[in-house]
């Protein structure tokens, strides 16, 4: 009986040691992967900052104004005027051809919304 117990315990210890070893390496791999992802996130954030700055630069009012002037023939954009405001209730929307789903009618839209 005793030799069997010894053998069993030894095997158990071996198995546990193997499991702990594997867990340890898996954790380390996960951590290094996470570090890599964080570096990647930092890099992407940096790119995002550049893109955001570029977006703001390309959308600066001065440039947009020049583009509007250059493309006046096609776009015919003029500054917003006071007469261009209308209450959404003043607009006669045609009825859509067929409602896609009857049960969606429960959601009501705010009808007093302002629409430029």
């Amino acid at each position, binding site marked *: 009986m005793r030799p069997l117990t010894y053998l069993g315990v030894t095997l158990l210890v071996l198995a546990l040691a193997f499991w702990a070893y594997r867990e340890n390496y898996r954790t380390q791999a996960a951590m290094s992967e996470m570090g890599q992802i964080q570096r990647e996130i*930092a890099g992407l954030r940096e790119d995002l*900052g550049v893109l955001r700055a570029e977006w*703001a630069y390309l959308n600066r*009012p001065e440039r947009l104004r020049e583009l509007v002037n250059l493309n006046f023939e096609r776009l015919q954009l003029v500054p917003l*005027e*006071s*007469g261009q*405001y209308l209450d959404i209730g003043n607009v006669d929307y*045609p009825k859509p051809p067929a*409602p896609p789903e009857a049960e969606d009618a429960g959601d009501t839209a705010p009808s007093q919304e302002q629409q430029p």
Partner: protein
Amino acid sequence: MIRTPLRPLARILRAREHGENPDEIEAENRRLRHEAIQHKARRRAEGRLVLMAGFFLLAFGTVGVRMGVLASSNPSEPRSQVLSAQIISQRADITDRRGRVLATNLLTHSVYAHPQQMVDPIGAAQGLARIFPDLSEEKLIRDFTGNRKFMWIKRKISPEQMQAVHDIGEPGLLFGPREMRIYPNGDLASHILGGSGFGNEGVSSAEVLGVAGVEKAFDNWLRDPSNDGAPLALSIDLSAQAAMEEVLASGMALMSAKGAAGILMEVETGEILAMASLPDFDPNNRPRPLLKGDASDSPLFNRAVQGQYELGSTFKIFPVAQALDLKLINPNSGINSKSPMKIGKYLINDFNNYGPQLSATDVIVKSSNVGTVRIAQMLGVERQKDFLQKLGLFEPTSIEMVEAPTGRPLVPPRWPAVTAATVAFGHGLAASPLHLAAAYATIANRGKRVEPTLIHGRKRPEGEQVLSPRAAELAISMLRQVVTRGTAKQAEVEGYEIAGKTGTADKPRPSGGYYKNKVISTFASMFPASDPKYVLIVTLDEPSVGSGGGESRTAGATAVPVAAELVRRLAPMIGLEAKTDESLPSIAARFQPHVEPGPHDEIKLVANQ
């Protein structure tokens, strides 16, 4: 230890005398000795067992506690140091009220040299001089061949320049990462933003510090990591600001003015939607301040906040509103307006002679100096001073810019009768256009004090009531009549019910006295008059406009048309509806529209962190 003998002689002899077996004594002693030995051995073994048990308890206890801690704590990522993210997170972005970027950061590089590590110092100097035309080749050669160990070459370089420097192939030329502040909109809102520069510089990073404007006033806030990278949202509206600068610039050119300033302010909150001062500058490349001469000649000078101007007739509404508040007059009271009027040895004249008497409303509508002085005399010096102080015209504005304290109004130290009289029509007390905006906003806000601010959506305590709502309403209706039938007829913009007051003030000479042909013309207005929502101030520095052969410098011909154009452009942009008599039919919806619900997962806007 004394060993007890197994066969003690005394006892053996005694036992032999009694005829007993002496061996029994020996056996007895042997037994006692063994017992003692056994006892000792057991004590030692027990001690060892206790020690072992202690060790095991401690070891298993440690493991158990650790497991307990792991089981009960929340799982979290172990933080690892990420260098590049830290560099770019030094300073928060600045946005306008709708989140459009006004100032952000960009990662660039700086280039520096270790001349002692150089292989070919002369070739490197020639290469650098070719890439950066502003560097002098001789100076670089001198520096590189001397005994310097370290030198900066350029603080900020573009990626193309970096590649070109790299292509020189000189091991003594090195790059360091730099966070750079950029203002993508260029000149836009330059006076508000201010600008930035580098503080402590190292090879691997440099501090970015604000040098003026909001950047400096909020320097600590912008650099505080505990804000989690949240951007600073200003009350400025980017499109309104751009339109204001455009209209002001064309107005300035049309009126051949030297400078111009405009302020658009929300009455209820005191938030500034647009504030411009022309000429302006590019905060990306901030010019050097003037070391001599008049500060206002520099584009860095913010006329709207730092300018100290005698704002002329725009001040007339203050004594009139106060007299209405104190019920000394009503809008129809007759005021003696016989010109000229004599105070001590000084004569006060009107622009035109308005006859012997004007109603209080007409004093404002026709802008009578004499009439205003008469009303101010009814108030007395103390009450007049007190009211101007309550309007904030004696203190610098509380706006969140470092330049705010430099815009401290020039208040006369003593108030003899003649000073009180001239202050009543806006001479002798010099304040910035922003002060005027805050004072007009206070009237527009039904007499509740308004403090200007540049920060969007901040809760602030309600202002003190400095004027009764009734008096404020009467004053607004007087200002409205200035536009409908007075000096500012050109300011009538259909649907926006502008109420305002013109002011044309002669510019004081630095040597004393006033210029004959240089004026500051101002139009202070609020709209719509029935429920004022916005205050607009337009100031032109030294304008003149040709009118019917002659030259006109009055505000009615210069500042007023510019203000009208500003309202026309800005009011629809900021979502103010024009009031029209025409009423459109309201049509009931023919179907219940299905509206997609908005996304539930909220995306938090953060700057780079």
